[in-house]
Structures are given as structure tokens and as C-alpha cells.
């Protein structure tokens, strides 16, 4: 199988990819009971895609919160409403920025490495070797990484949001001098647990985690076994994940509102 370069049937190719992706998801779900034996592998993958992504998530969350605090203070001071900075920072981060930016970072940081790893396993015939040893590669290679992504993404998203609030507080209260009590009391008066934290942060990030992990594992698993194919699959993981995240974000927002 060579890298499909033809541009004439892009619609058909995209449809075929989506179809194969869906079938692959069913295959993985069917393999979940068998992969429970490999829980240690799942744990290792949570470490790899989750814990190793913490630094970038925390730094980005901090800066996103800080820049939001700065911009909102600037705009809200026109209306004399700087006391609403905390509220708007929290709502913007919980509902949109937290899950979406985390998912984009997650696709870039963890999704690509999963694709490249599985793609190289494919290219160096490790997957074929597993099949010969009667080890199901879907249960041993694909499913642990998929589950790890689904578990790690909401946790990362929560860390991102917490750091974002901290960043907003840092700029708004410590630097620009909004009253500390006003900042928190306005935030706690407006932000709702179910609407903002559960629906906003948790559900969105679970869906994004599922989609990004599925795309990453699928692209790696079905990559053409060449170095060019691995490079191509890695790129496609990022592109497809980003489009899927942003499109799904709109759909989810419309449903969860």
C-alpha cells in the first residue's frame, strides 16, 4: 500500500477513512475485555500521554488565564466592570478554552507520538511479529493507548482550568489590583457546577479525548509501513484531530447548552 497521493477522489478517500476509523473503533471496543490483562500497559500509557504532558498543559493554562485576565481587564474597565473579570475568565476557560486548548495540545503532544510509535511498530514488523506470537496487537498496542487517552484528557483539562484560573487571578488581583474578595465572590455567584464544570470541562474533554486518541491510534495502526508513511500519518493525526475537535466543540456546545 503506497501513500495515496491522488487528489481527484478526496471526498471518497475521506469517507473511506471515516468509515475505516469507525470500524476500527468497534474493533477496539470488542478487544477491551481482552486488553484488561494488559492493565499495566494501560498504566504505562497513562503515564506517557498524561503525566508527561502535564508540564506543557500547566504552562499553557497559566498563560491562557493570564492573557485572558489582561484582555478582559482592559475591555471591562471601559464599562467600569472590572469586578466581572473573574467570572468571565472562569466561564471562558471552563466552557471553551480549557477543553479545546487542552485537546489541541494533547493532539500535538501525545497524539503524534502515539501515531509515530504505532506506525514505527508497523513499519518494523513488530505488529506482524505479535500476530505470529498469537498476541492480539489491537488488545495489546491499540486499546491501552486509546483508554489512556480517554482517561488522561479530562484530568489534563481540569489541571489546565485550575492553572488558568490561577493565571487570571495572578494578573487580575495581584498585578492589576482587582479586589480579591470581589474576584472570587463574583465568580462563585455566577459559575454553575453542572453547566460549566460538568458539561463544560468534563463532558467535552471526555469526548475530545476519545476522538483524539481514536484518530491517533487509527492513523498509526493503518499507516503505510514506510518512513514517508509514518510522517504522513503523524501529520494527518494533527490535522484531523484539530478539525474534529473544533467541529465537535460546536456540536457539543449546541447540545450541552
Amino acid at each position, binding site marked *: 500500500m503506497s501513500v495515496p497521493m491522488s487528489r481527484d477522489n478526496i471526498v471518497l478517500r475521506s469517507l473511506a477513512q471515516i468509515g475505516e476509523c469507525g470500524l476500527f473503533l468497534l474493533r477496539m471496543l470488542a478487544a477491551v475485555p481482552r486488553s484488561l490483562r494488559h492493565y499495566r500497559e494501560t498504566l504505562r500509557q497513562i503515564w506517557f500521554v498524561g503525566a508527561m504532558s502535564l508540564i506543557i498543559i500547566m504552562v499553557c493554562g497559566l498563560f491562557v488565564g493570564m492573557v485572558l485576565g489582561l484582555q478582559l481587564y482592559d475591555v471591562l474597565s471601559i464599562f467600569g466592570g472590572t469586578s466581572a473579570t473573574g467570572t468571565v475568565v472562569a466561564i471562558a476557560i471552563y466552557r471553551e478554552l480549557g477543553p479545546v486548548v487542552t485537546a489541541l495540545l494533547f493532539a500535538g503532544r501525545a497524539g503524534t507520538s502515539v501515531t509515530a510509535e504505532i506506525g514505527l511498530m508497523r513499519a518494523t514488523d513488530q505488529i506482524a511479529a505479535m500476530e505470529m506470537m498469537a498476541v492480539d496487537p489491537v488488545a495489546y498496542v491499540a486499546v491501552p493507548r486509546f483508554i489512556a487517552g480517554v482517561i488522561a484528557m479530562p484530568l489534563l483539562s481540569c489541571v489546565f482550568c485550575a492553572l488558568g484560573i490561577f493565571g487570571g487571578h495572578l494578573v487580575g488581583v495581584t498585578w492589576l489590583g482587582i479586589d480579591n474578595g470581589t474576584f472570587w465572590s463574583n465568580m462563585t455567584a455566577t*459559575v454553575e457546577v453542572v453547566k460549566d*464544570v460538568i458539561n463544560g470541562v468534563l463532558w467535552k474533554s471526555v469526548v475530545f479525548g476519545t476522538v483524539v486518541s481514536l484518530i491517533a491510534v487509527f492513523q498509526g495502526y493503518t499507516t503505510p509501513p514506510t518512513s514517508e508513511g509514518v510522517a504522513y500519518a503523524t501529520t494527518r493525526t494533527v490535522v484531523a484531530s484539530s478539525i474534529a475537535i473544533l467541529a465537535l466543540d460546536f456540536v457539543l456546545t449546541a447540545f450541552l447548552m
Partner: protein
Amino acid sequence: MSQRPSYAVGTGLFIVLGFAALGYLATQTTSVANTSRGPSYTVEAHFANIGQLKERAPVKVAGVRVGQVRSITLEPGKETADVKLAIDQRYGQIPDDSVATIFTSGLLGDQYVGIQYGSSKKVLADGGTLALTRPAQQLEEMLGKFFGAGGAADNLAGSYRVKARFSNIGALSVGAPVKMAGVAIGSVQTVKADPVKLDAEVTLAIDKKYSQIPDDSAAAVFTSGLIGTQYVAIQPGGSPDMLKDGDELVLTQSAMQIEDLIGKFLVSGSSSSSGDKKDADGGKH
């Protein structure tokens, strides 16, 4: 278990950190943080208007939070809202003649219930009622009281068409609602400028079922909220005679222009405006 893999501790830390962050978000930055814990007792208060008061809004004494609004209900057939307040047990010394008022924190802030202590020796018990309440202040009422409601007046005829003259209708447009006690009872039918009297003549079409409006009622152009659309509010008078088709509402209050208001506000300290104020007060009564 021979040896623990090196990543296990890190993974555990990561998961704990993630859940800790979630717990922090859910409990410290949301309205859950406002939920009082510990024992509380319930006090009832009836308000004529609760404005934008929401459940879980704080209840404050001297600006310090002592409890929260537990529920807001409107019993069918009653005109006042029943608000149940959950007050922390340790603030159990509220005199039974205290006054409950709905305040707004800042110009655009959320509303809360403020309790001002009375002088009674008797303490409000669990399930008791705060008899003295002050409703949420509506911006128009406040401004109206502050600046006084001036009035021009006219009467015109029509088969339940009533006319009113305003020196300024603001952004009132044809089709805008006519409200009494906040309920729409009709709509604005025509708006035209009078070339002779140099004011605006507005025809209001009022629903026939509201035929019991006293003929000394006043019409005012109000704005819904700070930046909402404008409507005509009818404030019933006390006359035994009812409005008929073609009557004219004599007492009218023009739309408030924010520039005028601010202008009056800024000069109200000077001697020249004290006369204005007296007029305004006279006009109101």
C-alpha cells in the same frame, strides 16, 4: 509483586492531581462554594418584587454573609413572592421586627437580601416571617422618584383607543407594548409629532377586557432594563370614572434621556436646581 514500575508512582500522582484539580474547580470556583454548610434555620419573607434575585443568592447582615436564599416561589392568586431564607444557626439572634431588603451589589452586580436589625427583644424563630420587607428597586422607579414625574396631559377619543402626549418619547416605536403592573395590555398604534404643540402624540390601543382603568391614570415611557426596548407603562389612578374610547391620558411622563438625567444629577447640588426638585416633588403628589 517483585518491583513496582518506575512510572506507577508518577501515574498515580498525575491521576490524583487531575482529580484534585477537578474537585477544586467544582467546589471552590462555582456556586457550590456559596452553599452554606452546617445547621441553618429557615425564615420567610414576602417581597412585592424580587427583581433578579436568584436561589442561593447571599443573605447579608451589615454586608457580612449570614445565609442564602433557599427558594423563591409565587403562590397562585397572591401578588407577593415568597422567599425562603436559610440563615446559619450561629446568627440566630435576628430581632423579629428586622427589615429585609433586596439590594444590588454595584450597578450591574447580582442581587442579595440584606437584613437590617430592628429593636425588638423577641428573636425570629425557625419558620418565622420577616414582616417588613422592601422590594427590589427598579431603575425606572428610582429615577422617577429621584427626578419626579412631570406630566403633560391630553384626552382623545377612540373605540378603546387612548391618546397620550409626551414631550419626548425616546425610542418608542409603533407596536411597542403598553403595560400595566408589568403585564402587556395593549400596544402603541401610532406615533406622530404634533406640528402645533410640538410634542409627540401617541395612540395606545388597549385591550377591551381592561376597561376598568381609572381616567386619571398616568402613562409613562419606560425602558426594560438598562439597555432594553421602550414601552408605555400605565399607572392606575384613583378616579371612579373609567377610561373610555378616545380619552386622553392627562398625566404622562416622558422617556428618560440618560443625558438629561446625568445633567440634572450633576447640577442638582447647585441652587438653581433646587427649584426644579420642588416642582418635581409637587408633580408627583
